[in-house]
């Protein structure tokens, strides 16, 4: 009774969510246990986390956009890998079911799925209001 594209989406989303959360928990453990040195030391972080985001970034030298990729070796920015995976899960799943709609001639849903992929991709790319 459940449409096949819905089952396909569910299977991909399940993997994406599990992988993202597992990565986040593991990297946070490495961060707080001091297994990987943070880019922003805890004491400096605690002095700056009450600032608005732009002032915070200037105060601690934090990157915007996808600049965190270059800092992945640090305990704090390691956490961004899991967060990014969670953020990309819906994009990957929608992209996966798009050909199913097209193959079945469901033009309206295919168009909606295509637009959704574009919106999520634009948001993830940081084109809108991201890296200042």
């Amino acid at each position, binding site marked *: 009774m459940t449409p096949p594209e*819905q089952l396909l989406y569910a*299977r991909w*989303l399940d993997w994406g969510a599990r992988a993202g959360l597992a990565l986040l928990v593991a990297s946070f453990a490495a961060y707080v246990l001091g297994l990987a040195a943070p880019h922003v030391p805890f004491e400096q*972080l605690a002095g700056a986390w009450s600032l608005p*985001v732009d002032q*915070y970034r200037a105060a601690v030298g934090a990157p915007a956009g996808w600049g965190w990729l270059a800092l992945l070796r640090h305990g704090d920015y390691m956490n961004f890998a899991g*967060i990014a995976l969670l953020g990309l899960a819906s994009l990957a799943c929608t992209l996966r079911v798009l050909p199913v709609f097209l193959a079945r001639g469901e033009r309206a849903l295919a168009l909606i799925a295509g637009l*959704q992929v574009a919106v999520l991709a634009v948001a993830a790319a940081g084109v809108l209001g991201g890296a200042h």
Partner: protein
Amino acid sequence: MHAATLVIALVCSAPAWAGDAAVASWWLWPLALFAVSFAIGIVGVLAGVGGGVLFVPIVSGFFPFHLDFVRAAGLLLALSGALSAAPGLLRSGLASMRLAMPLALVGSITSIAGAMLGLALPTDLVQAALGATILAIAALMWRTKKSEHPEVPAGDALGRALRLQGVFHDPAAARDVEWRVHRTLPGLAAFAGIGLLAGLFGLGAGWANVPVLNLLMGAPLKLAVGTSGFVLSVVDTSAAWVYINRGAVLPVLVAPSIIGVMLGAKIGGRLLRVVRAVVVRRIVIGLLLAAGARALLKGLGIWN
């Protein structure tokens, strides 16, 4: 119980701590966040609200983190919960992808706009507006009725064109339930508004999705709840990226909150059978009133 008392004492005294003491004892904050999020996870499940709507006003009101970071964490928290629940809901047919997709598209576009607006506006204004919104949500929760199986004699033209109809199996009633929706255009407009608020304040939007799907569009209650979770996973993703790209993600805030809420939600799921939902719902409304008033007063500069 003692842990809960300790956390409440710690959180209630937060504004007094928020300066130099917070620097010296930084590690207390992730611990307190974990405990508070754990409690939010429990009551959120019992009261049928997502964690974000409680998390943002409580943490922005009583913890030292700037609202920008709290809103980002609220979105990621709601997103994690929705992503965890959505696969099961989709598989069981209690969420309809067909129904969710147009609503999620509109909501995700406006949630991006809301997030950008939230990061552009003065913090005090956003904080005060957040407080007013939370108070309105509490009133909405108090007054809103639900309809298990709304009557939808015929779908509207747009709903028919998008084939927003189907059948799902209700395991509790042990029967298949046919559904269709109407008022698709007003529904899309409502989801545009919900998306804007979700992005602006970092709130998960289950509190608004379910009434719109159920009462306005006529989806059966169980389908509305399931589909709301799926819509949320897409809408919150879009807004979350704006905050992530702006650099508004603090792992020390995000990770313990997500872990706490998810563990709390598991306990809440088990307690669901033994706790009276009406009582918990009243407690949540009380919490929303207190946190909303605090956010409003903080935004207006009356109680900093």
